[in-house]
């Protein structure tokens, strides 16, 4: 029965002029956004790979110099792009593309792509995710607002129910019909998307890309199903098809445009962040602690003296400059971890508010999940920041260990001054391994977006239950 109803709905829909126009529009925009997304991904990915290789080459080909100079020269780290960014660019336009890994400082990522674009950028990019999150629900609303209300107005609803068709079967049949119509439109786009992903098989970056793609498809299907259910539910209960349309459009407007902005306001009101100048000032105050540095150095010197069984620091067979540099780094690292950690935790708390806000609007939920799986949300960015910072600390430790291991004999004498400071060459530079970044596992993503997933599930279940409840209570 359900299949028969679904087939009838589908046929009717395909013959509707409205459907053809809307379908062409949705398909057209999906294909366009996928094509542009693919091109942008290919370009940026290539640039970042080239740049990463170049910065490594620059590091290896440094002239002989003191290792601390090399530490100041540093390397750049470029954030790799995930293939699924073709579908959802997430917050990538608003996050820096490169970070300079140098001594003594944890730098911020520089050059947000959005800051280099025009003000129209703030209207949004027409990514495939935007199409799926904003346009497809509108398509669903326009195709189904008159599903029940229209039939009631035409008088055919009474006839159907008099045949003994169960209201739930009717609802499911109509849902299946819309689903099939949607599938007809989105399947070509989806196949194109998968082909694009397969073509970008550099393999290295995104482990588990297959799983992420499957999950992405499933979550979007859940989102569409929620909208179908809501739309059919409203259509069944509204007094007229016009009222159904107005209510659904209002819901769509609130869902797409208003909910995220209000959630953003609530998030920043609950968990405010400092201004850049205050953040820097607080960090610098914690960094400039000469007594703390002296204390650390004294402790470490004592430890080393115990280790080498000597009575005085001068008798240590290592260069104290290396020790003092490393202690400086350790102190700095603690300060950076504290301050940046606090800031990023605040961002994550704000993002949790967005996720929980999915209770009020399914768009918030699907957006977080979509960005998470595409690897373009803040959690992913923080994961990369942590990895880059660990690499920076590795460089510093390697350089400082080398300085420690090569004390300049007879320091302070004219002989030593003539010989000049200790310099190292390419064997030391090569000791630092190239920066390898591994994307986090899909389970990590799912754990981070668990609230959104829960909200999506809640919406789907509630909407489906609501849709399937008997409509016989309503005047037919």
């Amino acid at each position, binding site marked *: 029965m359900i299949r028969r109803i679904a087939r009838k709905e589908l046929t009717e829909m395909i013959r509707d002029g409205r459907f053809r126009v809307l379908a062409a529009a949705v398909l057209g925009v999906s294909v366009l956004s996928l094509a542009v997304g693919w091109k942008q991904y290919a370009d*940026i990915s290539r640039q970042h790979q080239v740049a990463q290789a170049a910065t490594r080459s*620059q590091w290896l080909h440094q002239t002989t110099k003191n290792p601390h100079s090399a530490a100041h020269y540093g390397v750049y780290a470029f954030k790799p792009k995930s293939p699924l960014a073709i579908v959802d660019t997430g917050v990538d336009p*608003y996050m820096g593309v490169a970070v300079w890994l140098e001594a003594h400082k944890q730098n911020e990522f520089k050059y947000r792509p959005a*800051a280099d674009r*025009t*003000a129209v950028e703030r*209207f949004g990019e027409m990514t495939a995710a935007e199409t799926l999150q904003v346009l497809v629900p509108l398509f669903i609303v326009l195709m189904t607002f008159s599903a029940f209300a229209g039939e009631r107005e035409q008088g055919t609803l009474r006839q159907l129910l008099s045949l003994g068709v169960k209201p739930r079967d009717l609802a499911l049949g109509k849902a299946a019909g819309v689903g099939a119509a949607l599938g007809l439109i989105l399947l070509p786009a989806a196949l194109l998307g998968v082909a694009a992903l397969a073509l970008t098989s550099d393999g290295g970056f995104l482990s588990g890309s297959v799983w992420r793609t499957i999950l992405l498809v499933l979550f979007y299907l859940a989102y569409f199903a929620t909208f179908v259910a809501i739309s059919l539910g409203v259509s069944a209960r509204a007094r007229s098809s016009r009222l159904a349309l107005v209510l659904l459009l209002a819901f769509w407007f609130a869902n797409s445009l208003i909910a*995220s902005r209000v959630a953003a306001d609530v998030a*920043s009101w609950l968990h405010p962040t400092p*201004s850049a100048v205050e953040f820097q000032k607080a960090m610098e105050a914690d960094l400039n602690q000469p007594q703390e540095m002296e204390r650390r150095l004294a402790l470490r010197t004592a430890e080393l003296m115990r280790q080498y069984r000597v009575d005085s620091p001068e008798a240590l067979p290592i260069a104290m400059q290396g020790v003092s540099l490393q202690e400086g780094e350790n102190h700095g690292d603690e300060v950076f971890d504290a301050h940046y950690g606090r800031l990023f935790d605040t961002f994550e708390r704000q993002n949790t508010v967005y996720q929980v806000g999915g209770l009020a609007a399914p768009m918030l939920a699907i957006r977080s999940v979509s960005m998470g799986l595409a690897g373009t949300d803040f959690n992913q960015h923080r994961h990369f920041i942590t990895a880059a910072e660990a690499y920076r600390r590795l460089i510093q430790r390697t350089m400082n260990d080398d300085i420690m291991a090569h004390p300049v004999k007879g320091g302070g004498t004219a002989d030593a001054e003539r010989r000049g400071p200790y310099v190292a060459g390419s064997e030391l530079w090569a000791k630092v391994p190239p920066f390898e970044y591994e994307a986090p596992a899909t389970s990590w993503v799912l754990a981070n977006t668990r609230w959104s997933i829960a909200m999506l599930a809640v919406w789907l279940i509630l909407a489906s239950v609501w849709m399937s409840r008997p409509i016989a209570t309503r005047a037919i």
Partner: protein
Amino acid sequence: MIARLLRHEWRVLRADATVWVVGVVFAAAIGYAMVNGVRWVAFVRHAESAATAEESERHAQIQAQIDALQRDRKPVAPFGDPRNPTMFGSRFGPRYAMLPPAPLAAVAIGQSDLLPSYFKVSTDARETIVGASEIENPHRLLVGRFDLAFVIVFLYPLLILAVTYNMLSSEKEQGTLALALAQPVGLGTLTIGKVIVRALVLVGVVVGVSMIALVSGGASLGAPGAIARIGLWMAVVAAYGGLWFALAVLVASFGRPSATNATIVATLWLLLVVMLPSLFNLLATTIHPVPSRVEMIQAVRVASDEAAGAGSALLARYYEDHPELATGGAEQAMNDFNIIRVAVDDDVAKRARPVVDRYERQLARQQTMIDRLRFLSPAVLMQDALNDVAGTGVPRHRHFLAQVDRYHAQWRGFVVPLIFQKTRVTNADLAPRFEYQEEATAAVVRRVLIAALGMVIPAVLMAFIGLRRLRRYPVVG
């Protein structure tokens, strides 16, 4: 006659619950939006005063340090000596260049959450200085703000269309249109009367609520240019509203039933306000993609390497010309380091300039394309106009950046001679300060009026065509 029309229309409208709902929703949205705007301006002001305080504190500290060093003549490492001009210019002494919020900044947050309002100007490279950013959750930047500009650009047209899509078709369906037109009044006049009443209600709500919110939010209405900006704002709100009313009249003139009208106006809203701007963005970034910053970083780094490699050669050449200055010792080494750094920085800036220029040219081309395309989407025009009125758009920020560049040159102009003369900094107060010169109001007026014209001309056109078509409106059946 018109007065009677208006009075009658007002009575009919007053009885319609929909209009009240629309009015209340609108007023609530505007109130909430203004609260957001005022809070944002407060944040920017707070950040800027924190910057000023930080600068004065730091300068007081280093002046005290300088005085102590001059008095006691205790030895101090060159890298920690605030009298060392290189260290003063790059680490101890830098001042802030600040862009104060314009009088009506609460109206549109625009780009001011993405483009920073203050920069710490030191002797660092220009790209390093202007590459700094304000702290904000990227998700929030992506999502956008619920400010007055959002309400006006997105919600205002929707509400206009909601109260006008059936102004003629519902009367026709009820049968009262024929009765009304039995009076000595033309359909055109009737329509204009209906539009005027609705326009007065909606525009009245917008202007009234926003003015109340602005004043109570502490907007400095006495500031130069504030009155002009308020006038401009009212003009663009009226122009944008006029455009959508004209569109509604045009759609109504086709004589379709209410339900069809609803679909048509909803589609037009979606197209003009939601889809076209994103499509333009797509077009502009695909046709004129900005060259990669990543490539720029690499090019500048290669240039630095070459310049640093040449640095010693540069210094050697300098001493060939000034052998009397080659005295030797730690002091000499520090001075040498300072001078090499100046020479290297200049060299890097020179080599990096073509790369950065190519970048900015491509960005300018993208901007020009958008500037032309935006006349096809009233939403983009309106957003730009509101950003200009609020002073949070890209043109004002560029105006600010040009001044920052000049100040940066001024700062280097203060520090570099001290380096070459090997003079110590003894009075931190002598370091130049940044004074922001506001844009001429005439420039703002020009930009906003161009945008307003881009809305008024199509509005007049559509209204004209619509009113003409009304002559053949099927009043019955």
